[in-house]
């Protein structure tokens, strides 16, 4: 930086401190008493809502903008479409079911527990049919896992597209699932569990989304889940039973799971050939790209969460996750990747689950190029967009786990940008 720009920067900082009228310079003194304190408020005098006014509670009306949102022009019909989790406005790691993103291929169906059947057939000693009640009689486990659509951040291959972390990174949610390990059901049916076998799973809806899972994964940590965050799954997430395939792309997490078939090869269904495959620059496609690599993003500040308090102490907050295991470290840069600081992990996340990170810092009021970079317990470092493009070109749709950049201007507004 040359002398002149240094001077102009100092001059700016002096100026902004004056404009901010004390917000940047320590404790503020009030000029007049605050009526929120000195006047008797309605809520401090009159009575509030009684119990049972809302037998199943919803967020207070003031939070009504914290909702899933879709981008209509992305798909031909909302029946076969996706919407986005409002991750900009959420904190911690657990995604409330009511605002967790939805992805349907033929719409969300209403399937009653009493009408639910799960079949296991194919290379098994005993082809079986389970009812919902049957599943609740088998030993079950609880695990927190993220579910990320393989297309999350897919738009960004072509450059900075939609201005909002909800839209660039919102095809993700993170819930505590309760379910029966898939291996228990395989054993119950006397399945051939040799490692060259496949487990084909299929949904009960009209799309009958079907995917093939290699036996090794099926025996590892896959869950046949019937609860999320302590309550029944929501219709839009596969009520009454969905598959949970930890760390792997969301399309494998078959909703309304109705059939499990042991096969001697992958079915190579529509969703695992024509979709959810990655075409690289040379026109050759990668298939069976199941694992979601380590990724992170700053959720605040971000385009939907500008800095409104002016210069001074602030918290940079974000999410990190890896389909390979645990997040071990997240670094944050304010200058587009020239300098990095290691962020604080809010709580060590579970394996294949979201981890919250914080950089407790001071904003000097100058523009920033904010980035986050995750590392997982395999030592993998989240790549830049440039690194990904060097490997794969720009034609890929899925598995974009690049470092995201927000340009924060002097007013604290943030914008989705791409940097050199």
């Amino acid at each position, binding site marked *: *930086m040359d002398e002149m720009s240094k001077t102009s920067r100092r001059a700016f900082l002096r100026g902004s401190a004056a404009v901010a009228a004390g917000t940047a310079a320590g404790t503020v003194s009030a000029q007049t008493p605050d009526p929120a304190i000195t006047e008797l408020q309605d809520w401090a005098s009159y*009575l509030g*809502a009684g119990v049972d006014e809302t037998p199943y509670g919803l967020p207070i009306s003031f939070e*009504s903008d914290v909702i899933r*949102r*879709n*981008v209509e022009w*992305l*798909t*031909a019909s909302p*029946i*076969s479409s996706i919407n986005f989790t409002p991750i900009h406005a959420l904190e911690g790691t657990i995604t409330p079911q009511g605002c967790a993103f939805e992805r349907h291929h033929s719409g969300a169906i209403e399937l009653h527990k009493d009408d639910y059947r799960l*079949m296991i*057939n194919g290379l098994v000693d005993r*082809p*079986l*049919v*389970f009812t919902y009640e049957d599943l609740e009689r088998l030993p079950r486990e609880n695990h927190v896992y993220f579910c990320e659509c393989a297309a999350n951040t897919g738009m960004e291959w072509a450059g900075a*597209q*939609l*201005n909002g972390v909800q839209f660039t990174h919102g095809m993700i949610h993170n819930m505590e699932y309760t379910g029966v*390990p898939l291996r228990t059901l395989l*054993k*119950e049916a006397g399945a051939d569990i040799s490692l060259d076998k496949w487990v*084909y799973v*299929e949904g009960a809806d*009209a799309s*009958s989304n*079907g995917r093939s899972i290699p036996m090794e994964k099926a025996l590892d940590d896959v869950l046949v889940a019937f609860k999320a965050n302590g309550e029944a799954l929501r219709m839009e997430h596969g009520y009454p039973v969905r598959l949970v395939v930890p760390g792997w792309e969301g399309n494998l997490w078959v909703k309304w799971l109705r059939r499990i078939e042991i096969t001697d*090869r992958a*079915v*190579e269904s*529509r969703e695992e050939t*024509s979709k959810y495959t990655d*075409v690289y620059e040379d*026109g*050759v496609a*990668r298939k*069976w790209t199941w694992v979601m*690599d380590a990724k992170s993003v700053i959720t605040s500040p971000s385009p*939907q969460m500008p800095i409104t308090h002016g210069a001074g102490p602030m918290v940079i907050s974000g999410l990190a996750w890896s389909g390979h295991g645990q997040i071990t470290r997240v*670094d944050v840069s304010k200058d587009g990747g020239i300098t990095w600081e290691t962020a604080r992990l809010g709580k*060590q996340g579970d*394996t294949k689950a979201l981890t919250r990170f914080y950089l407790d810092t001071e904003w000097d009021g100058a*523009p920033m190029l904010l980035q986050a970079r995750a590392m997982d317990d395999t*030592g*993998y*470092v989240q*790549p830049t967009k440039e690194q990904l493009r060097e*490997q794969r070109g*720009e*034609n890929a749709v899925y598995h974009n786990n690049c470092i995201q950049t927000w*340009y924060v*201007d002097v*007013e604290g507004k943030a*914008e*989705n*940008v*791409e*940097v050199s």
Partner: protein
Amino acid sequence: MSKFLNIFLPAASGTALALGLAFGLAGRDYNKSTIESLEIQLDQANARTSAAQNTSDAQNEVVQALQDRLTTVEANLAAAASQIGSVAEPAPLKADTYQIGRLALSEEIAAWDVDVLPDGRGLPVGSGDVFTGEEVFADQCAACHGDFAEGVDNWPVLAGGFDTLADEDPIKTVGSYWPHLSTVWDYINRSMPFGAAGTLTADETYAIVAYILYSNDMVDDDFVLSQENFADFEMHNKDGFVLDDRAETEYAAWRTEPCMKNCKEEVEVTMRSVFLVETPPEGGSNSVMNSATIDGLPSFSATGPAFIPAATVAPKAPAATKAIVEEVSAEDQEAQLINDGKKVFKKCRACHEVGEGAKNGSGPHLNGIVGRTMGSVDGFKYSKVFAAALDDGLVWDDEALASFLEKPKSYMKGTKMAFSGLKKASDQQAVIEYLRTIGE
């Protein structure tokens, strides 16, 4: 923890025994020599007691130190365990089975197990030709996919796009991209037509697949597809897929200690967001082209931004807002007013019940209050001023309600109602409108 306590407890009880003996003996009437002897013994006992006490204190300190140590170790262990995140035991797997579930019948398996493998296993007996396929396609598929499988709007294009896979925007169709014919048959059979899945016959499905191949110039118009020639058919892009190779091409290189300082000389913004996204309160989103350019944005170096752009004046609220407000219909306004009134009524309901089964509380129920004669609810013990109003036949019309609600104690001097009133005329009106919706 208890293990350490057990070790040190015998030493402590030994001390108590010595003290007990010493004091017990000192109280007896013996001769002088005996006394002297006993005094010496007592001194010795005291000395021993003192020594034992010192030892005990020292030992207690050790116990405390060890306990503290153990507490720390246990806390560290718990913290470490929580970091591993997998202290929970996995669900048990029995040596034999749980005998849960029932055997699936062959009819049931036949009904659901209809997927088709790349080698053609799973295909039913049947056949279909291109001409039949064209008819069925026009009838069942063309609304979305177009008469020639070219795709309508955002719906999938099924034909063409050959040799575009290495282009900037590859066109991935059944012809150009799909590696297996089985996938086409399987998907159409199980999932199409959109909104009427599972309704096609096997022959219709064969015919549609034949027509899609024809649309891709992959077969002639006299082609007939059946389970017999199916497995022989090779797709254009059958060799266009390789297995996930990230482990070799990416992980190997990207599992390294990352740079923390001076990682680049300079960073410039090369592209700004194409779309700004509006998020209206009713949900969804509106994408608006971003007119801002990268001009005027600072580049960054290790010392920070090259310059500080001037803050722009925040744009004024769009004038359109007012127009939108004026367009709200009378019905909507009325509904809004009633809704507002329901909220304001929260101030009243501690004493006044409304709705079905409403009873008198501290105040009378308010069902049908608008237009009701004052002081007329049976069973409620009114103040004198309301008893008088009843005698005079006064009625709760809008005006009376508004005046009363504004300042109850001045409008009805002597009312027992403790409420201080609704200052805002809009609140008074809203509550009246809300109460008007509640009948007898």
